[in-house]
Structures are given as C-alpha cells and as structure tokens.
C-alpha cells in the first residue's frame, strides 16, 4: 500500500440485502458504498473490485495529501513546466471551464486560502493583511496549461477536492455499465449516481441528511436497512428522494463556519477576494445527469451567496437547499 496513514485500510465488505448486495469501503476520507441489484455474488465482487480500484486510483493520483500524487507533483514543481497525462489535462480543462463559468469565483488554485481561514465555528476571522499576503498566489489565470504540460507558478497549489469525488462517482458508473446492465448505485461520501432505475422501473430511495447532525452533508442509500435504522435515530428532517436516473451531489457544510459580531462566515471562499461568501445556504444538493455536473452546479450556486436558489431556479436545476 503506497498511500499514507490518513486513509484507513483498503478493504471491501459485502452484505446481502433484500434485493441485491451492498459493498462498503473507505476512500477519499469518506464512507463509500456500492449497491448492485443482483443475487450473483461473483458479479457483485467483480463490479465492486473494478469500482473501488478506480476510486482508489483517482484518490492516489489526485490527493494533495499523497506526496506521490500527480497533484503533489504539480504543487511541488516550483514553477517548472511539467508533463501531464491526458486524464490530468482533461480534469484541468474541466477546472478551467468552471473557473470561466463562475467568473473566477471557483478556482482550484484557491485551496491555499485555507492556510489563513480556519472554519472551526470560532471568531477567528482572517485579517486583511493575511489575505493580501496569500491572494497573489491564487488565480487560475496565472497558470499555463498545454495539452501535455502545466506550468504552475512557485508558491501556488492546486486542489482537486472540489470535484475529485464526483469525478470518481461518474467514472465508477461508467465502468460498471461496461460490465452489467443491472442497476448499480455508487455513493462516495454522499455524492452519488445510479446507472438507471432499479428493476421494475423503481426509483432508488436516498436520504439527503440534515447537515446539522453530520460533519458532512451526506447522502446514504435507503435500501440499506441497518444503516437507515441508525440514521433515523440520529438525524432529523432527512429529505428522502426517489432517484430514477442521474446523480445527486451536495455542496456545503454547516459545521464549518466562523461567526463574528452576529455575522456568519461560510466556509465557501470567494477566490477573487479571498473572503468567505456571505449568506450562502448551509448546503445545496443538486440533481444532474452526471455527478460532476451536479456537484459543480451546487458549488457554483453556493458561490452566489444569497442568490444561490435563484441561480439554480434560473438554470432549471432540481435542487434542495438548506439554510
């Protein structure tokens, strides 16, 4: 195992359910779950292996905590032009499009702002001096991206955390579809997608948990009976959603905030100013055909602050917002 000790051991556990199997594992600092509606355990194992290997591969390749990752390689390049593969290029192009679509509000080079913002519920607001010191090292426009290479100015850093998990969900669904036409649900810490409806054209029931009760707003499939029983005790106001097609992704995190003089600072940072977005919903869950699209719609909406819901309505997105 080459990854560091932040990640728990890479193992899979299976459980037979009323209408198929669930497999759980840990990746990307989140509990992960695959549900497959079949009674053939061999098929379940085959799909699960493929999917979990893919998720772990993406984690290894793009985690900024893994010093051997492509991400670390880029971040440690000290201003040198370095070679990248096609997958990395496509992810960076996607990040660039999100940067452009958001008018610069979303920026995968903004991760270093977390060096001065600690969203721990305290009153520790970053100072203008801190922000002025960091901001010169934020900005996608300072990066030179070529189809085979990237040049990241020294002192800057990229963070694929804004869509890495959602990307892994979509890759997992694509891979499972190559093997089986049976219904599959992939849930990586609350960002999830289905290959299609359950047998008999039935929807998957998923719960969008109330963020107040959890560190992360996560979505857990509802046909996992045991898990659901415990959740029903611990959470309130879960929204149960019947998902037929597509993906759900949640952006936002109510426990991570700062509060000073009655003002609540969300953990969502404006990459242009270095300040938190004000009056953003606590969390937004969006529905889209692909998970990466759902996640980005939710994130871009949060960046609109008090206009988050209006933004999603104008874009005709189905969403659930919590304030």
């Amino acid at each position, binding site marked *: 195992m080459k990854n560091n000790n932040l990640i728990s051991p890479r193992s899979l556990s299976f459980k037979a359910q009323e209408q198929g199997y669930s497999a759980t594992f840990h990746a990307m600092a989140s509990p992960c779950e695959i549900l497959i509606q079949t009674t053939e355990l061999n098929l379940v194992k085959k799909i699960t292996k493929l999917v979990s290997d893919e998720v772990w591969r993406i984690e290894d390749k793009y985690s900024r905590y893994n010093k051997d990752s492509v991400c670390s390689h880029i971040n440690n390049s000290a201003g040198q032009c370095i070679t990248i593969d096609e997958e990395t290029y496509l992810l960076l192009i996607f990040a660039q499009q999100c940067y452009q679509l958001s008018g610069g509000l979303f920026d995968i080079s903004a991760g270093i702002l977390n060096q001065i913002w600690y969203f721990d519920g305290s009153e520790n607001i970053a100072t203008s001096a801190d922000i002025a010191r960091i901001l010169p090292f934020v900005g996608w426009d300072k990066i030179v991206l070529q189809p085979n290479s990237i040049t990241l100015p020294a002192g800057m850093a990229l963070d694929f955390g804004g869509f890495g998990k959602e990307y892994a969900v979509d890759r997992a669904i694509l891979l499972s579809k190559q093997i089986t036409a049976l219904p599959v649900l992939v849930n990586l810490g609350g960002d999830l997608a289905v290959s299609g409806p359950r047998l*008999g054209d039935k929807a998957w029931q998923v719960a969008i948990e109330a963020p107040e009760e959890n560190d992360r707003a996560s979505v857990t499939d509802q046909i996992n009976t045991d898990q659901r029983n415990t959740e029903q005790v611990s959470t309130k106001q879960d929204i149960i959603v019947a998902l037929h097609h597509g993906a759900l992704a949640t952006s936002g995190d109510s426990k991570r905030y700062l509060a000073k003089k009655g003002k609540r600072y969300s953990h969502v940072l404006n990459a242009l100013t270095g300040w938190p977005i004000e009056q953003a919903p606590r969390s937004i869950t969006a529905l889209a055909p692909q998970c990466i699209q759902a996640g980005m719609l939710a994130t871009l909406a949060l960046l609109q602050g008090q206009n988050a819901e209006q933004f999603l309505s104008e874009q005709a997105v189905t969403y659930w917002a919590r304030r």
Partner: protein
Amino acid sequence: MMNSLSGKSAKKHINVKAALSMAAGALLGTTTAVGDAKAQVLKDWQIDSAFLFYSEADRVTAAEVIISGNRTFINDEVLNFKLTIDSLTGASANGAVAQGQAQTFTRPSGDGQYVTPVGDTPLDDTFKDTRVQLNAQWTQPIADNYTASVGGHLSKEFDYLSLGINANLAVDFDKKNSTISLGFSHFQDTFTPIGGIPKPHESMLIGDSNSPSWDEEFAHTRIASSDNKYTTDILLGFSQVINRRMITQFNYSFSTVSGYLTDPFKIVSVLNEQGITQDYIYEQRPDERRKQSIFGQAKYHFDQGLFNSVVDFSYRYMWDDWQIKSHTFDSTWYFPLSNWFGKQSYLQPHLRYYQQSAAEFYQPYIFTGHGLETNQGFVSADYRIGEMHAITLGAKYGFTFNNGNDFSVRLEYYQQTPTNAGFDVPAGLENLTVYPVVQAIILQISYSFL
C-alpha cells in the same frame, strides 16, 4: 456584498447547466446527450390534494375535494389515506319523457311537487347531497417478488352508506419485467332514501300534498324505508415491460352485484297511442347483475423523437347480463416542456370515446296496456343505461416546483349523446327531444406537496 458582482452579472445570461453538461461530457468521454436525471422527494408523508369541479349544462353541478396522504416506511411498506368530500347540487333527469304540455311530478320525498315546462326534459331539481368518503390502504412486500395490499372503504351520504374491504396480491417475475396481480373487493351499501323506497310499477301519486289523506296515500306507493346492495369484484391483471420504452397492462374483471339495484328516484312515462303521457310508474331493475370486462393498455415513451412524449392508449370492453355492452377508448399524450418554461412542466391532451348499448329492459317510455309483459316486468327509462355514446376532450397542464411539489390543472369537455335503440316514436313525440344531449365541463386543480 463581498463576492464579485462581475461574476454574478456575467453569468446571468449563460446557460451554466448546458455548459457544465458539455464540459462533463468532454471530461468523461460521453456525449452530452447521454443521461437524464430524474428524482423527486419522498419524505415521510406525501400529500396530494385535488379540487374537482364538474358541471353539466342545466343539470348537476358537483364539487369535490380529495386529500390523499402516502407514507412510505423502511421496508417499502406504504400506508395511504384518502379523504374525498363531494357535494352535488342541481337537477337530474327523472326518466319521464318530454311532452307537448307542462308536466307535474311529485318529489321523491313526497313533500311537494315540481313542474316541467312544455317540451323540456323532466328534471328533478331536488338533488343536493354531500358525500364523505374515506379509504385506507396498506401495501407491503411479503416475500421476494410478492407484494400484498389490504384496504378498507367507508362512504357516507345523507341517504347512503357504503362499506368495503379489498385485498390484492402482486407477483413479479422475469426480473420484475412481468407482474401478475389478483384483486378482490367486497362492498355493502345501504340505501335509505328520503320518502322511502317506492313500489315498482306503482303509479307516481300526483295531487294536493297538503290534503289530509296525502301522507297515507303516498305511503301506499312505498314498500320499505331502506334496502341493501352487495358488490363483489375480482380482478386479474398482467403487466409486462416490453422494453425500456414500452409497458403494457391487461386486466380481466368480474363483478357481481345483488340486492336493490333499482333507482328509487327514476320513473317511466306511460303513453297512449298518440304519445301523450297517461301515467308515471316507478322503475324496476333485476336484483342481480354480473359484469365482466377486459382491458388493455399500452404506454410508449418516445425517447428521442416526438418531443420525448409519452403516449398512453387503452381500450376496455365491458359486458353484463343486462345486455349492456360498452367500448371505451382512452388516450393521453404527455409532452414534457421542461426547457420552455424553466420549470419541469408538461402538457397532456386527453381524448376519450365511450359507446354503450342499452340494457335489455331499457325503454324510453311504455304504452298503456303493454310494455311490462316482457323482461319479467323489469323496466327503466334511465338514460344512463340506454344506448349512447360519449366523448371527452381536454388537456392537463402541470409543473414541478424545484422543491419537488407538483401542480396541475385539467380542463375537459364532456358530451354524452343518447340515441334511439330502435323504439317506435309516437306522433306526439315527433317534435320533442326524447334523447337529450348532456354536456359538461370538468375542471380539476391538483397540488402534491411533500
């Protein structure tokens, strides 16, 4: 506001969703056309409410409120409650035929009279009723591929009480692509009309209802104060998923009704040779009826073409031992309009055609001295069991809010055209409307919230 205004205003006119869809497609190597997304909130209780307004030209007006609550439990058990309250007012045809002179009738209660003008179809305008109906249904999986359901029904009107129970079993097979279902229901209805139940073939008493002997004379036309009706239905269904675009459903149903099946408010005109009314007698129907029907339905979803619409077509053939046979063609066409109005909306036109033959004992009127000797004396002039055809034409528009709540409005026009099933028309009726057309407007507003 500290967030960038430039970002916000610049984006206003960009279709971010479409741009992200293309970007995601490029990243994942899928075409942007791939994939749709569909989800709705289930929550604890899903409440559906509907208001329905039905109005026949010059006749009955009905207003109905339906509130239905669905709760889905952990293991896919579903509890459903449905409360229906409707109120009916207006006039209903009493069965008598139009005449070249005004006609006087006694109200079903025996309390007073009403007069029908020259040439008009006689309508009893005393209809006023409020019905409260309560249904409860529990559905749960009982084993792999087996789903069972039981329910109860209670319906109360001023002069009517209906109690019912039902049970259903559904079995899925072929990877849930096929479902066989078996249903059973039993109802017991008690009818307690004001003024009691009239004696079949007895002449309607017409005269001075204030006279001291009136009550006693009226009581002579009555045989009981209440009566019962029992209905048992058996349904056998089969549904089959043909492919991901098409599903089909086939049903066979058998229904047997026994007890008091006569309508105590309906009379039959007794005419002389010239067609002039001599008398009105109370109708009589058999105390048994066996109905059977077959039903087929197909739903087809046009994935790419035809605006992604869904066509639903069904046909029902019903026959019974009263010799009524009916054909029903029903079709809806669902058009999603999601990209037109910014919300998930749809338009659904509806067309229905219905045609039925008359019951063997149906007679629009009888003649003095004969008319009761056939069909064991059973006779009814109720247009609803006569020969007729009907058409319904309308559309429904609905949309889903971002929070998953649904709103819809349905507007329909209904026209029922009774026809002559070969009865002789005496000279006195030649210029009168014996088979009046019934026209109605139906407006329904529905709201589902979670």
